[in-house]
């Protein structure tokens, strides 16, 4: 896919999103309500309209091949770059999905091992140490000091004795 094609797709997608936002804003009154000023939908409705107009402007520039992006025939994401970026993005998505099941303390070590060992090709010693150390630091900082309880999923019962110790 070239940059030019990507530009078209992005503008179309964002244009569609703008229309959706306009429709959604219309659920609330758009326009002047006597005695109470502009309705709740007015502000987002007109801003979404501005978004749509901007997308049309981007499309207009695309058709007349105006500007470096609209006229570019370069590859949007080269395949070896895509591999790297997609691997990182996918690992993030899997990690977040795992938060709700095996909890943050199950998912983070897995993510760290994957990143350090598989993507970074660091030694098992370094990968292992950091994968244990970082979650421990996070536990102390967020849960003990800041009292922000992070999602634990099925590992919740394992933490009850720890909570008893600190609180």
């Amino acid at each position, binding site marked *: 896919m070239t*940059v030019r094609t*990507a*530009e078209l797709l*992005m503008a179309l997608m*964002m244009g569609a999103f703008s229309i959706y*936002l306009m429709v*959604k*804003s219309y*659920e*609330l009154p758009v326009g*002047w309500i006597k005695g*109470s*000023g*502009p*309705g*709740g*939908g007015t*502000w*987002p409705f007109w*801003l*979404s309209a*501005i*978004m749509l107009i*901007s997308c049309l*402007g*981007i499309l207009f*520039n695309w058709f007349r091949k105006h500007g*470096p*992006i609209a006229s570019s025939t370069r590859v*949007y*994401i*080269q395949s*070896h*770059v895509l*591999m*790297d*970026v997609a691997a*990182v*993005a996918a690992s*993030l998505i899997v*990690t*977040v999905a795992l*938060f709700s099941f095996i909890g*943050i303390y199950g998912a*983070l070590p897995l*993510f*760290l091992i994957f*990143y*350090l060992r598989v*993507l970074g*090709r*660091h030694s098992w010693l370094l990968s292992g140490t*950091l994968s244990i150390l970082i979650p421990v630091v*996070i536990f102390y900082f*967020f849960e003990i000091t*800041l009292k*922000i*309880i*992070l*999602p634990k999923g099925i590992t919740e019962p394992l933490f009850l004795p720890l909570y008893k110790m600190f609180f």
Partner: protein
Amino acid sequence: MLETLQLLGSGFLIVFEPLNLALIIGGCALGLFIGAMPGLGSVNGVAILLPLTFLVPPTGAIIFLAAIYYGAMYGGAISSIMLGIPGASTAVATTFDGRPLAKQGLADKALTAAAVASFVGGSISVVLFTFFAPPLAHVALVFGAPEEFALMMLAFATFVGLGGDDIFKTIFSIAIGLVLSAIGFDIISGEPRLVLWDITGFLHGVNFLVLAIGIYGIGEMLWTVEEHALGGGESMLSEATVTVKRTMANLRELVGTWKTLLMGSVLGYFVGILPAAGATPGSLMAYGIAKQISNEPEKFGKGAVEGVCAPESANNAASTGSMLPMLTLGIPGSPTTAILLGGMVIWGLEPGPRLFTDHSEFVWGLIASLYAANLFAVIINLAFIPVFIKILKTPFTILAPIIFVLCLIGGYAPTESMHDVWLMIIFGIVGYLMRKLDYPLAPAVLAIVLGPLAEPALRQSLIISDGEFSIFFTRAYAGPIMIAALILLFLPLLKIIYVRLRGPKAVSG
């Protein structure tokens, strides 16, 4: 004048509390580190680390974040000089002469010049700040809703008129940021609004940190992953010899550059006040002017010390400048201050001119902390140059997962909702894809912070005027501000018309 000094003195008393002093020193060191890492700048550091500051009171939190902001401005120079890769976009101009100096084996000279220039830029601008801020805040006290809205229009218009990016994409970025901020509940009628796809998670709105960490944390890191895949590994690190004797000689040589330092500081400060301009264009402009006023302009680009001094004094001065509208008017002067402003809202402080009267302890503590941060940053920087050079050797594949983990938790912490973590990931990936198409994203972050302030300002103004938009043009302060905003908004269009009209003449002449 005397009152200002008294208030500044009370600010210093806050700064010298042990906790705050520790936060400044820690923030400076952390900021230096963040700034020195290629790809990470002050905005990334402040966005990712803001959730950590829930631990301390607001004054401590902003002091810490401001110290990071300051430190990062110093640190950006380190990788510009040692690696030839700007540590942050604000340090791009520093590579022009810093890199040639390093290649000649004079890396220590460039690093010392950068540190001292940053110090001078920071010091001059913070003094300007101290005496400009109170009068400006005083004038702004009479501002009502129409003036506030006009100011925000001016802030957005600077992105369109001076940002230099694609106009449609800039406007899109501003509008989407404002719409995202409108999600949740209608502030006046209290009805649920824009609950996208009827997902209940949208009922509590889109926290600005979710967008900021998405774009400046996840998106930025994906961008860096790409650059590493393209660059194919480690770059060449220059050698630096640092001895006390050489440093002293370097310092003596810098006395001769005072004109450049002064110019860079003052220019950077005023450019920094503009929301769309800030440290990056400020430092580039300072570099250009330094070259013009120099007696030996041919030396620039080949290792002129002035070429390091000018951009480094300007970018530090700009970072102070960008705090002026943030503290006095409630309008951020840069993406980093936009995030700081959002933080102030979380900490329960209402941004705007009233801040100076209602929370004078907070304001003067922050201002005094800038003096202190500046001093600590230069000391840490000069003393630990060899350490920072070693840090640059940390492989990206160790740093990246740690930053990702901080982002994930940072996205969760403010609202404790998994919905926000997912949203942050989506913002990160979409933001990365948009950035590849040259969509400017800073306006969106500014807009999501200002949105909740802009909408009530607009609606109140229209209620006052019974729906007449003329209210924005007939009032003493709102009028000129709004007209300036409109001029900036239509500046790109005027330029096109000007070129079209001049075009045939220029060809025939």
